């Protein structure tokens, strides 16, 4: 087991390198570069063409963008191995600092979201699988389908109009995660204030996720319920609850667990649309704005960290398989 994990960790190095090379190339070869973008924004303040050009050249030199791409790449890698991702082109603050500001917000938002999705979807899926094609099953599947079909940007705006604008109700805040000046309050009031701000974004992030996961659980559970060992469990005299919860759910959860592996990178990425609509300064918004302004250091840092987390989470879900399913072994086959 330990040797397997070690082997997988070593295999990550070339994979990660490949991802970084491709990301670096794609980002740098995309049309538009930060220097030109900056001079364009300065152009409005009536500058002659010559000085604009020299500004572009100087900016390029400053950031090292005048060097050939391979050289730029090597210089970037050299610093990145010490976790120094440089400074942002936009506000010249260290990239890591910007990420450390945005990450906790996105993590908080997404962990709550995923927790709510799982805590509701999995029991719902099991429940509908135990009595398939019953009234409850049909009602649940129609409601979830409707939820699934509603685009989140539309729902976000409707919720803002209804609950936050003051036109109808003025119950909930609609921007940011903390009221202005609330940072001076005692900690429990800050927690309350943040929760208050998170209600609408979390509703928008969760409602669409129920459908997929609960249908997935239902399908997995239906498959398990018609297995012979469920009949054996009933023949033993176990109560229906024990049959379903002990012998059914444990087996049905195996495929659901793999889904968990894909969650970690999603946790970090954040939702661009929802963070943008609710003006939440999270990772989604940071990434989006960095791409628009060709802020290479920030883009590269986010891409590298996401790639690393993705690889780790894939490994984690493979190891998790072994934990829940005794049939899976990482050791070489005997005989």
């Amino acid at each position, binding site marked *: 087991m330990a040797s397997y994990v070690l082997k997988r960790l070593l295999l990550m190095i070339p994979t990660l390198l490949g991802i970084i090379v491709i990301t670096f190339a794609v980002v740098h070869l995309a049309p538009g570069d930060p220097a030109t973008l900056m001079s364009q924004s300065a152009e409005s303040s009536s500058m002659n063409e010559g000085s604009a050009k020299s500004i572009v050249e100087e900016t390029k030199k400053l950031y090292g963008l005048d060097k050939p791409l391979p050289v730029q790449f090597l210089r970037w890698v050299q610093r990145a191995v010490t976790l120094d991702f440089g400074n942002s082109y936009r506000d010249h603050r260290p990239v890591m600092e910007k990420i450390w500001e945005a990450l906790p917000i996105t993590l908080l938002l997404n962990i709550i979201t995923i927790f709510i999705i799982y805590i509701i979807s999995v029991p719902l899926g099991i429940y509908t699988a135990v009595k398939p094609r019953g009234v409850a099953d049909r009602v649940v599947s129609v409601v979830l389908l409707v939820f699934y079909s509603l685009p989140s940007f539309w729902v976000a705006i409707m919720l803002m109009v209804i609950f936050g604008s003051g036109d109808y109700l003025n119950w909930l805040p609609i921007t940011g995660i903390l009221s202005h000046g609330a940072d001076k309050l005692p900690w429990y009031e800050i927690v309350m204030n943040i929760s208050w701000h998170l209600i609408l974004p979390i509703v928008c992030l969760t409602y669409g996720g129920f459908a997929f996961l609960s249908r997935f659980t239902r399908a997995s559970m239906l498959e398990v319920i018609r297995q012979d*060992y469920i009949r*054996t469990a009933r023949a*033993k*005299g176990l*109560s229906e609850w024990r049959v379903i919860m002990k012998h059914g759910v444990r087996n049905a959860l195996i495929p659901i667990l793999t889904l968990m592996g894909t969650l970690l990178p999603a946790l970090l990425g954040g939702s661009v649309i929802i963070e943008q609509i609710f003006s939440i300064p999270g990772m989604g918004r940071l990434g989006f704005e960095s791409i628009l302004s060709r802020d290479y250091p920030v883009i590269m840092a986010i891409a590298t960290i996401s790639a690393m987390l993705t690889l780790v989470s894939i490994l984690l879900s493979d190891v998790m398989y072994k934990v829940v399913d*005794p049939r899976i072994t990482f050791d070489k086959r005997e005989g």
Partner: protein
Amino acid sequence: MTLLQVRNLTTQFFTDEGVVKAVDGATFNLDKGKTLCIVGESGCGKSVMSLSLMRLIPEPPGRIVQGEIMFNDVQGERDLLKLSNEEMRRIRGKRIGMIFQEPMTSLNPVYTIGNQIGEAIALHEGGSNKQVKERTIRMLELVGIPAPEQRMREYPHQLSGGMRQRAMIAMALSCTPDILIADEPTTALDVTIQAQILDLMRELQRELGMAIIFVTHDLGVVAEMADQIAVMYAGKFVEVGTAQQIFNDPKHPYTQGLLKSIPSFEKGTEGKRLPTIPGVVPSLSNLPMGCAFADRCEKVKDRCRGEAVSEDPCNVGRLVRCFYA
């Protein structure tokens, strides 16, 4: 002593294609410590029969529409079909154990053998963890699994097919039931293992004194195990008798056909074609009014098709569902 009296047991499945009469008016007795074999082709309702006795028919689409299953043990006589679900659960695994055809899929892959056997013991007998564990080990020893303390910590996939079926038997017998229902327990095993399992079942029957209902399509197995035999065709018992009666003096044309189609090593049979019963089993959802075997029967007459056959029209003295036996 009669342990089980089944009267007119009828199980039907209500499907889109119509009502499937999987078990149609089955009637039989089972004596304490004896073995009843239910024989028939695939799809004749044998498995539904055995699941009906345990009330494990998936509902819907299935339902036991009528009949009674009188079970007579130390607690007195009662009709299993009239018990509440709760009371029935106390019968399952405790008074009636069951083993199935496919020992691989019948054991839960994510729990150890010990856990699955101990679960039944803890449920019906109670006791401390240590007592449950000791009894589990005793059961594994009883069914001839070597190194039981180590085996009980293993998962089903780590055991061979024969070992798995032994573990299933240990589980079914862990609370010393009065009846063991075995639904084709040897079909998925190869022949030498099959013989071992049959020996084991007979041995345990002598030791523990339980009655066995053995469901199979293999007449060789029947010859080894049976005290009583019930031959089933298209959901109905067509002939019931002692092993001697069925093998030496079969009355129903279907039973006769089955016995004739056993390969024989006697002199004079070499090079000859093995006799078979022509035709196929009729669909259980569309059974004829008269005898279901009529289309395949050599002795068929007009009366067979037009009239329902009673249990013993020829007064043989036991159930032989044929007008011309």
